[in-house]
């Protein structure tokens, strides 16, 4: 067994732990910029995982997918989000309805839930239960971020985290979707972030804040 294959196998085996830790850190982060950076780190872990898979299965398509994840999710989207954040000129704090400590506890509970739920499925289909649990936990955390965070930009991040989870679930269960669909998803995602960016700007222009919990009345 060559060194590269060994490293690839080890990357696959240990990436779930890193994903768990990034999810917890996103829940604990106090600044939006930190959340964006952590999102990029999470995507980098996923990239490493796809590259490892590509090595082990000798698939050129998977390399292409990895390159696209790197370009779109690790570089383009965080860059765009940071730009939006800078130009919005709102306070850097993540305003949440739960304190960081509570968020970490809730995310920890979601992880355990994910682990418990995934066990029978993973056993039945002989899948890596830790990876599948990580994917489920990321989906749940994304949903939790969207519910608990008040700023519009954090909800965008929540959605992206959720999408990461779905992507990861597809990757672990069926070794990724067909290449064309994968490409379509990345393109959608990029457009989605840009549109949501524009939307956040519109919210700010109309209401002079981006606090979603205060959007209660219609305004012309």
């Amino acid at each position, binding site marked *: 067994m060559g060194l590269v294959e060994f490293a690839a196998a080890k990357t696959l085996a240990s990436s779930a732990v890193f994903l*768990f830790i990034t999810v917890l850190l996103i829940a*604990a982060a106090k600044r939006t910029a930190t959340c964006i950076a952590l999102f990029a780190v999470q995507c980098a872990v996923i990239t490493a995982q796809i590259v490892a898979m590509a090595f082990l299965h000798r698939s050129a398509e998977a390399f292409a997918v990895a390159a696209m994840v790197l370009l779109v999710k690790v570089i383009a989207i965080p860059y765009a989000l940071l730009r939006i954040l800078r130009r919005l000129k709102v306070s850097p704090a993540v305003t949440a309805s739960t304190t960081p*400590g509570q968020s*970490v*506890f809730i995310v*920890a509970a979601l992880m355990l839930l994910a682990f418990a739920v995934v066990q029978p499925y993973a056993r039945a289909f002989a899948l890596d239960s*830790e990876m599948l649990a990580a994917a489920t936990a990321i989906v749940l955390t994304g949903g939790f971020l969207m519910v608990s965070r008040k700023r519009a930009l954090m909800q965008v991040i929540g959605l992206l985290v959720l999408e990461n989870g779905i992507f990861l679930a597809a990757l672990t269960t069926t070794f990724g979707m067909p290449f064309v669909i994968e490409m379509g998803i990345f393109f959608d995602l990029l457009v989605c972030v840009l549109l949501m960016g524009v939307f956040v700007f519109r919210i700010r222009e109309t209401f002079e804040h981006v606090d979603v919990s205060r959007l209660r009345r219609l305004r012309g």
Partner: protein
Amino acid sequence: MTRALDVLQFLVLVGTAPLLSGIIGQVKARIQNRRGASVLRPYAELWKLFRKEDLIPPTASPLFRLCPVILWAATLAAAAFVPVLDTSSLLGNRGDIILLVYLLALGRFFLVQGAMDGGSSFGGMGASREAMVSTLTEAPLLLGLIAVAIVSHGTSVASIVQWTADRRLFELSSAHAFACVALVMVTIAETGRVPIDNPSTHLELTMIHEAMVLEYSGPSLALIEWASAIKLNLMLALLVALFAPWGIATSVSLPALVIAACAFLLKMTLLAVALAALESSVAKLRMYLVPEYLGMACALSVLAVVFTAFKR
């Protein structure tokens, strides 16, 4: 031979404690663009304090003199659990991690007693803060250690370290990762480093440890300072032994021991530099945010314990 080695390890841990504090101080000074005092300054300070007169406040009871001695003794006993060069240690095979945790807690208890006995209001304030922090650190510290113990099927420090040393980094589970992060957070709180307590502050509103030792002087103060240096040293050594023991001597032979000594020195120096960098880049937390911080550590350690059940 192994017995002598165990004693040697213990003496190294106790003897190099002031040196570690000195190194951290030196690195912090360098980061702040100062030249800093010599790394041997803590030894000189201890020597100076041991030769000075021990002043006792008129309101204090005999307990006041006794507390630093008990603190020092309990910390020494705890240090005897931590393996440095090979996997065994002076008490590593006899007592377990739970005894280790509560020896530290015993020392802390008497430090708090002594601080309140001193009669100054700052002592009482520091004591109540210390009591709060220590109640909150106890759960994550114990749970983190228990998670590691469950994974390695043994509660004695020696067996845990032996188990981990036999494995490679990638073979460790997510329980280890969570326990490691939780224990690093707890170590920072437990040893009174920056986000929780500032060891070099003399601002009355924020200090914890410094407020408690305000009434102490001479040999008593020296014992307290030495004990807290040993505690920092032993907590860091424990982290190294539990989560990165590779390089530790699994058999007693000269080359293995030399490698182990070099590996230990390297790891401790790295940790000291990392701690100094952290202390220079992070602001101290408000007192009301400390429960938040330790709550996160607690969540992580609970996760670590539960994840041991899902281990493949």
